[in-house]
């Protein structure tokens, strides 16, 4: 259970992967590195919130078990 929760790629993850890749393409084409930088900042926050929530969820399952 823990393993699956930790390593499962959710729809949100896929959306962010797409956004990240898209920002690279668009940022490069438009010569706007700020688009990529913005996505990097958003990704940092998002991925850490995701990890925190997963950790919380795992703890919840563990406690339940």
């Amino acid at each position, binding site marked *: 259970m823990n393993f699956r929760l*930790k*390593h*499962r*790629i959710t729809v949100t*993850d*896929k959306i*962010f*992967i797409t956004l*990240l*890749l898209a920002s*690279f393409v668009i*940022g490069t084409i438009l*010569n706007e*590195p*700020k688009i*990529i*930088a*913005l*996505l*990097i*900042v958003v*990704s*940092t*926050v998002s*991925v*850490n919130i995701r*990890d925190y929530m997963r*950790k919380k969820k795992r703890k919840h399952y563990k406690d339940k078990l």
Partner: protein
Amino acid sequence: MKNFFYLAITLCIATGLIFVSCDKANNDDLNGSLNFNSTASSLSDNFGRANDIPAEYDSIDAEFGNYLTTVSLALIDKGIENPTTDDIKHEAKKYYREKYADFDTTMIDNFDESAISTDNSFLSDDQQKTLDKLNELIISTDKDLFEQQIPTMVSLINTLPASDRASLFIYLATIKHGAIADRNISIAIADGNRFVTSGETMVTQGFWRWLGNAFCGAWYLGRYAAIITPGAAAVPFIDGACLAYGLSQLV
């Protein structure tokens, strides 16, 4: 405690990186890694040297070449005091052909002479306004004010597509030939993505930014794709570094 330690170390690294990045960002032009300090000092050094242009001719072009200086000085050498657009086009083509055998000179050929004084269609209104201000500064004698405007100038130049940059420089060379040459202020784009001043070692624009973006992008792709798992000890540090890098690029 362990987490606090990680957090503290990460914050230290992040803060350091922000300072370093901000300092670098201030020194760089807005789109790349041009060394602004050395550029400014070079301009400062060169600014007052109105009378020693011929002596510097060789050294100016030694590293890579400098469009305006090369063109301007070549024209002066030929005794052309008031060059026409054709004179400048001719020298520009010669310069580019010497530097790049396969350089497409059609963009120079296609430059519309009438655009010089009447319709600078390759510039937006804002760009034209900025350019007008810069032109005033180029012919002014206020060195400090001029140097303050360098980032604006670099920024303006970087907003133009490569083909328009050639036009911009023909425009500048034509209109401001005398003032620029007299003061030995050399402002050049020798290639589509590079901005150089005389005697400066050129840094390929955007390389470090590209590297940072590529690393952080790959890092987060790995994080989202669960290739990098949050358990590893280095994760918070690299996350912190990427956050600092991203923020510094946004500032």
